[in-house]
């Protein structure tokens, strides 16, 4: 079965993340949320700590601590500042993608810079106006030339798009139907023909930028192609599977922060032994559901660490974690009345920040599609064996 007790090295990374969360991220979180923009200084501190490449080999500048450590660290950081954490998550995802699919030259050129802040951060440019949950609707195209490739099109909702030094860009390279004609490119942020839109005004994660990115005759060399032509969708799916562990961990961190803030408020208002059941039971529900989600997330991370399939387990984790974290933040805000609505209290920020975890890197509906397809596949293989659905 599973050994969900983290190893000492993984716990050390968690401790490191908790320290930086307390010393750097939490003190800056309120101001960052209010003024908006990009969390430059917090990311600089994270770059110095190695946390920008948690699951990246040491010879490329990472911590080589694995996906369990990554999950624990993200939860600790999101507890303090979800805006900074989402930039870190995407950067880790980009670093892992280049490490896994890149040529030795690509790895050497980009991964150390993703880990030490040389690229500032990496960004993941997959979504488009007409291609959100469905990448087959992609319209960005890459045309092969004598000198490499020319990319034209536009991407939407690109996390850290305002400041990223490296973009992983998906584009159609043939007219093959569906996702077969999609390829993947590494495009430095200063490439001529790449332009960044204004950051979107959003409900939450106001301290992280989300931009449109335009590619207009954006010319890159042949070395920009990541993996083989037409294999981009596979790259995206692998990245998203791992990314979902990150978003689940992020949601758990935010949900726990809201629950702790509400518990602290309740104890102050009613006294530790006088909290009425209506409030106490709501806190108990939140704590229970978030622990269950954390265990699902650790299971997915453990499977990934062991090199076993983890796709539908990552979807289960993200589905439950994001929905239960939203419920926890909603409960916390509701029980605190007017005080919860006050922007001076962090719970309203947690409520705004957590809502997007049910949307990005695959909506809850997409996660349900992944999980239900897996159930159907296993039952189809052996309809007499419900044990297939056991852990």
């Amino acid at each position, binding site marked *: 079965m599973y050994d969900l007790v983290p190893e000492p090295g993984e716990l050390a990374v968690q401790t490191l993340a908790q320290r930086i969360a307390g010393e750097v991220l939490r003190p800056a979180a309120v101001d960052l949320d209010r003024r908006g923009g990009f969390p430059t200084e917090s990311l600089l501190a994270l770059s110095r700590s190695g946390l920008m490449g948690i699951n990246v080999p040491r010879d490329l500048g990472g911590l080589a601590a694995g996906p369990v450590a990554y999950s624990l660290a993200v939860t600790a950081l999101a507890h303090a500042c979800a805006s900074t954490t989402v930039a870190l998550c995407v950067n880790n995802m980009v670093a892992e993608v280049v490490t896994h699919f890149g040529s030795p030259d690509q790895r050497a050129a980009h991964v150390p810079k993703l880990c030490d802040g040389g690229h500032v951060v990496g960004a993941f440019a997959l*979504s488009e106006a*007409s*291609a*959100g*949950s*469905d990448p*087959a*609707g992609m319209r960005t195209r890459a045309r092969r030339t004598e000198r490499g490739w020319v990319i034209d099109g536009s991407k*939407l*909702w690109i996390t850290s798009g305002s400041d990223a030094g490296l973009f992983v860009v998906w584009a159609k390279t043939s007219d093959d139907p569906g996702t077969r004609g999609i390829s993947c490119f590494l495009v430095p942020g200063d490439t001529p023909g790449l332009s960044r839109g204004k950051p*979107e*005004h*959003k*409900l*939450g994660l106001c301290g992280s930028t*989300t931009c449109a990115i335009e590619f207009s005759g954006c010319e890159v060399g042949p070395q920009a192609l990541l993996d083989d032509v037409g294999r981009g969708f596979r790259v995206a799916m692998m990245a998203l599977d791992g990314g979902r562990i990150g978003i689940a961990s992020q949601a758990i961190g935010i949900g726990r922060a809201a629950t702790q803030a509400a518990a602290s408020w309740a104890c102050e208002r009613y006294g530790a032994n006088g909290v*009425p059941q*209506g*409030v106490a039971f709501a806190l108990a529900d939140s704590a229970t559901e978030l622990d269950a989600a954390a265990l699902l997330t650790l299971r997915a991370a453990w499977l990934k660490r062991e090199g076993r399939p983890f796709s539908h387990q990552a979807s289960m984790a993200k589905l439950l974690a994001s929905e239960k974290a*939203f419920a926890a933040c*909603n409960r916390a*805000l*509701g*029980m605190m*009345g*007017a*005080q*919860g*609505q*006050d*922007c*001076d209290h962090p719970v*309203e920020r947690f*409520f*705004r920040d957590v*809502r*997007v975890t*049910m*949307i*990005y890197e695959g*909506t*809850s*509906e997409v996660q*349900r599609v992944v999980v239900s397809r897996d159930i159907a596949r296993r039952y189809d293989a052996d309809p007499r064996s419900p044990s297939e659905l056991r852990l």
Partner: protein
Amino acid sequence: MKWPAHVEALQGAVVALGARELGPNAARWDSSAGFEPTFAAKVADWGLFGVSVPEVQGGAGAGLLGAAVVIEEIAAHSGSLAMRLALHEGVAVGFALGLADTSLLARLIGNGGFAGWVGLGRGVTAEQSSDRLRLQGSVCMAPGDGDLVVAGHGTGGPRVGFVAADQLSSGRARAACGLRAVGWTDVVIDADVEHSGNAAVAARLGARLSVLIGAVACGLARAAISQATAYAQVREQFGQSIAQFQAIQWKLANGATERDAAWLLVTDAAGRLDAQRPAANEAAARAQLAAVRMSVSACSEALQVHGGYGYTREFPIERLLRDARACTAIDRGDDDLRAALAAAITARFE
């Protein structure tokens, strides 16, 4: 739903007003956290103050049911304006109606500005002398900086009084998660007031406000479901509009069903309060509890239908969710409402 003719006429007028004056400005009011200084005068000109007041007393004569219908319609455009009207009509106008105070009614129906409410449990003390009520306390996040109806506890039990704006010291303005244009402000109350009411008055005002908060919640939910439906019909993924996916259809169906159920509770409670029927206060608490919970859920699901677009301010859906969530911050929260309902239910079995 079929309303009495004069309520239907009011609703029709507000539908037109909403499209012309409210919808186009709602996002701006939200981002600037308030209305223009002259806005209350416009609202008075539009006849939106005193909807529940009998015509002989200068109002629209539509009762609380009419006010609920109007406020539900306004909430579909601007939650903040709807909530300001809910506070004004539900509490301040209700207070003046109970006292049959014609000068106060004239002030509230005319251009006296929006009045707000500080309910019980906000730390205000209320000491009644022979002819005056002394109200004292510091309130964090009061709705607006105009006149306030204030409830407080004293040695004689709960009391409620009307405090004019010039008797209040306004502190700093507060940024809030939702209903931002309500204009949340810290206030210091230290006032002797002439007109006051007892616990029964406070309960009646609370019930009126519950109905109108329920109406705000229902209007927000209706707008959210309408926008999600429209979006689902034009948004295509996987070669078809997302409205053709069962997952989306169920969200819309559940949202519409739960919203209609909550709206029936709200209008039933409004009718009971208008007719002074038994258990009206209990019906009002039930309506608010159901409507606010429904509204947060419906707005959240509608945001989900919008996907990534829903998280941006490019679409109004994120504002609707914030506003729905803030409905619990105005007066009694879910736990207080449940406690009141449980007390009423158990009393019937004693």
